[in-house]
């Protein structure tokens, strides 16, 4: 393990080209029109400027919360920090082990058994084969699947699916943890049990980036908050100051709509 993880964004801009007239692009278009970000790139291709000129440096001990309205670019920023989207301008530097919890169903194949899905996740994460039995044991124990472990995931109850997804996502501990808000959703009974495990993981991570609408979660886990608006950084600073400004702005916006 590297002694000093780092996660830096330097003038990062991401432009989303719009090529396919599918629902996903349509949704993006609607968001973009609503937020005034529909534009064209240098080659006059239509698209969305999803991130504009994002700057920050994160070192060991930093806990960054991302807040902002839907379509503000939070998830795109997480994907960029995870190295999934490569920036068209600017620079992203990642050093240290990283785990991005973006999609609860990542790579889960409903036709495969729970055990096979666990093995696949281990392989997706590039774990050596010697670690796979340990991963399986850990996930099976937490998810409490019993004999269902050898049955296709397709027949699982929704509760079992959530448990498996959560157990898988929290089994591999990174130095840099990127987390989307889906992770905090779940039924109360399960969350109680999951909470300890999640807290272990969050505390164990040296750098945390959490994207959430649930300001309580940001308040609890983050020390610094980045407020995003239309792909730009609207405010970046200590948690309480930024959250106060964000709450005030959100309240005004609600009044305007009403």
């Amino acid at each position: 393990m590297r002694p000093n993880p780092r996660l830096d964004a330097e003038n990062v801009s991401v432009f989303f080209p719009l090529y396919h007239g599918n629902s996903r692009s349509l949704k993006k278009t609607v968001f973009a029109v609503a937020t005034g970000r529909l534009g064209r790139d240098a080659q006059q291709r239509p698209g969305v400027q999803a991130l504009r000129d994002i700057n920050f440096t994160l070192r060991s001990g930093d806990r960054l919360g991302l807040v902002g309205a839907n379509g503000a670019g939070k998830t795109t920023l997480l994907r960029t920090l995870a190295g999934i989207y490569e920036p068209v301008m600017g620079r992203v530097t990642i050093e240290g082990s990283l785990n991005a919890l973006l999609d609860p169903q990542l790579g889960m194949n409903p036709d495969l058994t729970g055990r096979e899905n666990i093995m696949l996740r281990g392989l997706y994460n590039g774990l050596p084969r010697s670690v796979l039995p340990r991963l399986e044991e850990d996930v099976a124990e937490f998810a409490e699947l019993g004999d269902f472990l050898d049955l296709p995931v397709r027949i699982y109850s929704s509760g079992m699916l959530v448990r498996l997804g959560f157990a898988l996502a929290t089994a591999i501990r990174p130095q840099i943890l990127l987390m989307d808000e889906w992770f905090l959703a779940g039924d109360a009974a399960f969350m109680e049990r999951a909470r300890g495990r999640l807290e272990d993981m969050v505390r164990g991570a040296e750098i945390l980036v959490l994207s959430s609408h649930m300001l309580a979660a940001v308040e609890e886990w983050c020390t610094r908050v980045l407020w995003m608006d239309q792909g730009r950084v609207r405010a970046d600073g200590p948690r309480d100051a930024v959250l106060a400004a964000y709450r005030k702005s959100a309240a005004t916006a609600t009044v305007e709509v009403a």
Partner: protein
Amino acid sequence: MSAAPANAPSITARDVALELHGDRSRRHLAALAVRDLREGLTLWRLALTLGWLDIRLRYRGSLLGPFWLTLSTAVMIGALGLLYGALFHMDVRTYLPFLALSQVLWAFLGLLIADACACFTQSEVVIRSVRMPLFVHALRVLVRNLLVLAHNVVVIVAVDLIFAVSPGVMALLCLPGIALWLVDSLAICVLLGAVGARFRDIPPIVASITQIAFFITPVMWKPEQLGARVWVLPFNPFFDLLEIVRAPLLGEMPTATVWGAALGYSAVLLALSWWLFTRARGRVPFWI
């Protein structure tokens, strides 16, 4: 870093050192592409598992499993062999072994090309949720198609046994041909996968081209049926690539022209594929 609590899982994520920037210089793009290939190869175990699961899931719950591939190929070759043997006035004892070999090898090429178009789009969810070398998906498509080929090879062996034909030691000469096929297959997956992710009209276009190629390439018919016009064949890349593997398995030595043309076409394919991969690699997650 605080000490991990006792109940915490002890599995740590893999280390990453990445610097991604908007530099579109050829050198930077090439370095990232090389890194993708290298990391993709180290994940060979994942590619093997995914390819194997693809086949297993396709035939899940069926009695014969993937051996349906063997059976349907056998039925088709038997039927076509009798029909075309009669139409072309050829001796079934020589025509059928030829057809079995040609058809199975062509099926590999044809299915691989069709599959390659969806190489990246079919893994959309994974590509958008974790950073992973794109080359893994190309390896997966290759593994899947090699498994299909392995099931169909049974038919070739059976037909050869039934008609007591054997290519002899010459068959070993197919090995360099197969090696070239593996390299070309990966190049096709990367090339068509990237184009297919960007332009959704690619699969039907590719399917039409492969269909035409099937008729103009001597798969069902023998090259010598062209008579004096046989010299045109090496201009068809499909013929050269097919011939470097097929001829040795029929007990014939592929001509130098055929090998030269196969190498030439492969070089063009690899160059094109590399050129596109270096440029499209970083863009694929935005396209799918």
